[in-house]
């Protein structure tokens, strides 16, 4: 009996379940990046001049920036001239309803267990499905339109609601915010756009599935969600990517804006291809997600379950500008094999009596490296600001690692900032207790891990919580016997 049980080793070497490639006719841009490629992307999307200008400014900014190296992740240098920046599946005819969607695309969603038809019928979730760069099917649009909610692809928003895009784009994540955000701003292909008008509670959960399909295509989504005064919305994002040997770059930007008394809840289940057992392949998930509580009493809540990607580099944050505004971050990050995750949040307290809560659960297995990195910043204007941070790490086996880097900057003496951290190994005692009761080791590990994550899972909308638990359980399958 070694100290690493067979269960734990199996868990660490689990196989990716969504690694298939769908053969779609793809419309691609030439490899590499220059102003012509950006003009091509812009013209493919039939964008107005201001949009092209915005992209070009971002590109020129990006050229002057350096790729960051401070994150706790090791990877070979990325050749930005070896990436294809635009790929769209060619629709055979213009799409007006779900029936006309490429059957192969639908079959792919079926394989992922996300039957649009089924979701439409059973769950009442409006799904904006994105394959590579173009939104291929949008459901429930009419129903949402009845209450004034706009939920469409980002490209469509640029065409149909340019004044809203112009007013809010880049107000939370500026073009030159960081290297990857600048790159995204220059080349973003598509994404989702949501606008919830004053006083409207969005009548259903909004959901998007992103999927990288074409080989060697960086996917650069851009998502913008705006909740006006008193509006509220819950948005779900799920991701999977097929198995590839070369690493694929995924550099998304998500911006959330909450005005007075508005609430936005943003939930993510990220299950991009993590690479194989030796650490070959897998997605580089370098994402900038940020919300701005611009109005008083507004609230933005991030919940993420990160089980995929070779490297995750992501800090969904909240700028707490309005007085009494609330920011929340609930995270489960799991790293197995050679996965690396450097994730956490930034809570920037500007308004009075603003409060933030951070709950981070990190699970490491195999050679996985899991880092929590969080910034809590209280400016001198933020009297009465409060933060509570809790970081727990669970280690499975002896070759993995968990790290915590909390940054706290407090400029106001009335602020209260608390930080709690714990690291535990999945206990031999716990496993034995479960097994003595007849629960097989594999189920016991799954149960203990799910229990460890419960505080975060309970923040997820119901159907997502089930999916997240399934995802962890699936990850734990295939040991014993």
């Amino acid at each position, binding site marked *: 009996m070694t100290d690493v049980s067979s269960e734990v080793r199996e868990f660490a070497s689990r196989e990716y379940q969504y690694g298939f490639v769908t053969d779609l006719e793809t419309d691609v841009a030439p490899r590499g990046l220059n102003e012509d490629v950006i003009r091509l992307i812009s013209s493919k999307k039939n964008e107005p001049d201001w949009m092209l200008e915005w992209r070009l400014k971002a590109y020129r900014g990006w050229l002057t920036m350096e790729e960051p190296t401070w994150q706790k992740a090791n990877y070979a240098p990325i050749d930005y001239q070896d990436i294809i920046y635009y790929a769209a599946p060619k629709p055979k005819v213009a799409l007006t309803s779900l029936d006309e969607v490429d059957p192969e695309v639908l079959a792919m969603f079926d394989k992922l267990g996300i039957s649009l038809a089924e979701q439409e019928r059973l769950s009442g979730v409006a799904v904006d499905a994105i394959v590579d760069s173009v939104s291929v099917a949008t459901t429930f649009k009419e129903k949402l339109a009845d209450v004034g909610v706009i939920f469409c692809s980002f490209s469509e928003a640029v065409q149909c609601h340019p004044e809203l895009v112009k007013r809010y784009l880049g107000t939370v994540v500026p073009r030159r915010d960081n290297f990857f955000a600048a790159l995204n701003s220059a080349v973003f292909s598509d994404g989702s756009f949501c606008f919830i008008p004053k006083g409207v509670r969005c009548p259903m959960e909004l959901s998007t599935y992103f999927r990288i399909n074409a080989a060697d295509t960086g996917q650069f989504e851009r998502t913008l969600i705006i909740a006006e005064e008193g509006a509220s919305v819950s948005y779900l994002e799920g991701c999977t990517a097929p198995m590839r040997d070369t690493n694929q770059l995924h550099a998304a930007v998500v911006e959330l804006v909450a005005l007075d008394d508005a609430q936005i809840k943003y939930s993510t289940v990220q299950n991009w291809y993590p690479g194989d057992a030796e650490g070959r392949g897998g997605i580089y998930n370098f994402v900038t997600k940020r919300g701005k509580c611009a109005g008083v009493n507004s609230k933005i809540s991030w919940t993420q379950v990160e089980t995929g990607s070779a490297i995750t580099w992501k800090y969904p944050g909240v700028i707490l500008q309005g007085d009494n505004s609330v920011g929340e971050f609930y995270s489960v990050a799991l790293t197995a094999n050679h996965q690396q995750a450097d994730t956490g949040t930034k809570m920037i307290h500007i308004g009075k009596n603003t409060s933030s809560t951070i709950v981070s659960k990190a699970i490491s297995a195999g050679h996985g490296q899991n880092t929590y990195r969080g910034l809590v910043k209280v400016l001198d204007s933020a009297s009465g600001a409060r933060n509570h941070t809790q970081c727990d790490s669970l280690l499975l086996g002896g070759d993995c690692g968990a790290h915590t880097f909390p940054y706290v900057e407090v400029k106001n003496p009335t602020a209260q900032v608390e930080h709690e951290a714990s690291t535990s190994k999945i206990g031999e005692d*716990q496993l*034995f207790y479960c097994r003595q009761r*007849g*629960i097989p080791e594999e189920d016991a590990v799954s149960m203990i891990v*799910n*229990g460890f*994550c419960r505080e975060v899972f309970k923040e997820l909308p119901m159907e997502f919580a089930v999916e997240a638990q399934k995802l962890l359980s699936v990850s734990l399958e295939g040991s014993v016997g």
Partner: protein
Amino acid sequence: MLQIENLRASIGGKEILRGVNLEVHAGEVHAVMGPNGSGKSTLAQVLAGRESYDVTGKVLYEGEDLLALSPEERAAAGVFLAFQYPVEIPGVGNLYFVRTALNSLRRQQGLDELDAIDFLSLAKERMRLVEMDESFMGRSVNEGFSGGEKKRNEIFQMAVLEPKLAILDETDSGLDIDALRVVAQGVNALRSEGRAMLVITHYQRLLDYIVPDVVHVFADGQIVRSGDKDLALELEQHGYADLEQRATLASAAAPVVGATS
């Protein structure tokens, strides 16, 4: 039901069990008494399948080689251990845990799983046995439970899982007299023709409530004396010191059989 022959167990090169011999029949309650550090709990752990020990010797359970089975297989065969120190499992609901356990056992036994509603009525009935408040069921397994609550929870689980061989490891330790009475009452209610119990304890007082058929005295990794319930009373009067002396003599005299690895 249970036959133990020359059972030896060591951990990190240190021998804890030094040739245990014991036979338990269905329907019997055996008490194993002995001073701290004598190896009583190791015996319980080894029988339940704890993997940290190097074990030699023979254990037959209903004619099968118990030592060849994994902990979960032993559980499915009807072996239950009420832990001396029940572990906490944060975030896992107690009722959910017990239902998962019961259904895992039923699956291994080729029975249908109990659905949530049938399970709940079973659980409520068994909770009454140990006077357990229903509010415990929603809480995480043993998390924030007092010592007495943890022990009651063990007996509750035993009542739900209905084992054939129940090993109670120091179930009385840390209990006040009221809790002791409740726990003993639960155990007594579970005594039956087909069920054997091995009650491990340091103190005689538990045996005022759970009256054993056979009492064994454990010292220095061996059973040094066996007798009826009066033996426990004798121990109460004379203490263990006298016995330990006897154990030293016994092990010096014992032939060396089946050397440990």
